[in-house]
């Protein structure tokens, strides 16, 4: 077991058999990522010792542990907290989980920048997905944030002046409408999701309005013309064929056939 010190905790390689059951389903994308790239981020465990045998409670990283177990791995890299004298309550555990999740909250623009750099260097969304284990849909969405938002909107998203939900709705707006939305907002009244959705609706109505103005030639069959053509062809035959063709010509004109 390798040990190193880190802020009072120790970084260790812990046998998975000693870790409690994570009690969650395996996330396919996470399993794929760990399978391809290995475990990149340590989990956080708390050690308990009973009759000289160490067992570990999971503080953070249930899904990573579930994926490692599903892959048949024997060890997990973990930050292990020292055993507290006062014990460790369910409330302490909940707080730790919350803090850990907040500290590793996704940074959308950093991810979008990274996807953008990979795309510029010749990767495709497919290869990024294959090499990182990130779902293809997520890769494409990150690329869209980078490509479809105007620079001002992207910077506002990066600085926190534009919420992710509003930015996502703005992806469907053309550049001039994105600009107009941002110009109508300030620090006190930032762009709301509802504003962005409203602009998307207006844009769609304008688009459909353009469509209704398009004149499409008619192709309704001209029965009189067709009937005339059939009569002409009928003239080239005699007997039953001619009769059938003439009857068809009559039907086209809405007449009855005896």
């Amino acid at each position, binding site marked *: 077991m390798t040990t190193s010190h880190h802020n009072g905790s120790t970084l260790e390689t812990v046998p998975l058999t000693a870790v409690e059951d994570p009690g969650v389903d395996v996330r396919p994308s996470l399993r794929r990522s760990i399978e391809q790239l290995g475990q990149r981020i340590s989990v956080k465990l708390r050690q308990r010792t009973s009759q000289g045998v160490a067992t570990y409670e999971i503080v953070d990283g249930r899904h990573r542990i579930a994926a490692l177990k599903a892959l048949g791995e024997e060890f997990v890299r973990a930050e292990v907290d020292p055993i507290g004298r006062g014990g460790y309550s369910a409330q302490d555990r909940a707080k730790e989980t919350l803090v850990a999740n907040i500290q590793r909250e996704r940074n959308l623009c950093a991810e979008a920048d990274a996807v953008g750099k990979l795309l510029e260097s010749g990767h495709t969304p497919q290869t990024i997905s294959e090499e990182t284990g990130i779902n293809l849909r997520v890769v494409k969405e990150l690329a869209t944030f980078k490509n479809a938002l105007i620079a001002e909107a992207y910077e506002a998203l990066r600085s926190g002046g534009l919420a992710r939900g509003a930015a996502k709705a703005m992806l*469907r707006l*053309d550049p001039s409408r994105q600009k107009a939305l941002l110009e109508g907002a300030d620090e006190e009244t930032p762009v709301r999701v509802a504003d962005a959705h409203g602009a998307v609706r207006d844009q769609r109505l304008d688009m459909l309005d353009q469509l209704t103005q*398009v004149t*499409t*030639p008619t*192709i309704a069959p001209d029965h009189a013309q067709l009937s005339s053509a059939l009569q002409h062809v009928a003239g080239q035959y005699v007997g039953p064929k001619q009769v059938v063709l003439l009857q068809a010509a009559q039907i086209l004109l809405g007449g009855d056939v005896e």
Partner: protein
Amino acid sequence: MTIFADIITTPRGCGKRQKGGLYACTGLSTGVGGVPIEAFVIDPPIPWTSGPFRGVQFVERANGPVDIVMWVGAENYPTVPDYIEEARQMGFCKRIPTGTLDEGNRSNGVDYSRIVPHESRMVLVHPKAVVHSAYRLSTGTGSTPNIQRTQHGLCAYSGRFSVVGTTQNDHHLTHDNEGPSCTFATWDLSALESSTKHRVEPVDSVGAIATISTPSVSYHASYPKDGTADPVEYSPGIFCAVPLGHFEFISATGDTMPEPIADLLGANFIHTKICDE
């Protein structure tokens, strides 16, 4: 009596028609009073900003019938001309959803009884209809369809358009990133793309004209000139609106249609051809 214009049923870019499938169709001209397909191409394209979608979207026209908007996927039709050239030879035929018909429910809001044949339009959106990049098109001739270009740097389809009385196409042969692009420019620009469903080969050693082969058809285009962006950037746009002529249902039994699908069609049942393939 309903006359069904011809739909060619050999495999298309999107494959063979499926048993149980309902299709919106506009057939080929019967030889009398036909309209050139270019007349239904919307030029310049109308940018589509509502994202990709499956199935159909109904659009009410003021004081008019309802149109149905459909997405043409780049997986099966990598470029706009791939779709148009197939339709030129085989007619328009797009599968339309029938919803979840379990227990007789009419779901997903589809209701084809609102369609008025020959008045309602099939409006088609392609992800690569609007060109954002710079391009320089050739003034040469020899491509098919024969795009007539004047000496003034315009690409005018005057011969065809004057027949049907639509507006003249007056877009320049050059485009510099901004302003509306020309839908017909996508013919020549498609010579720059190559994939398994869109093979491009020069016609001769001069290399001015390319033969473009799709799974269903082949056509010619002139290679764009230097100064054209590589790769060309596109975004989705409405590129075609054609009156919907009739429906076709591919019956598993050859001559019958399940009642729930007949319900979706309503009175348009009489404008529906039941086929076995």
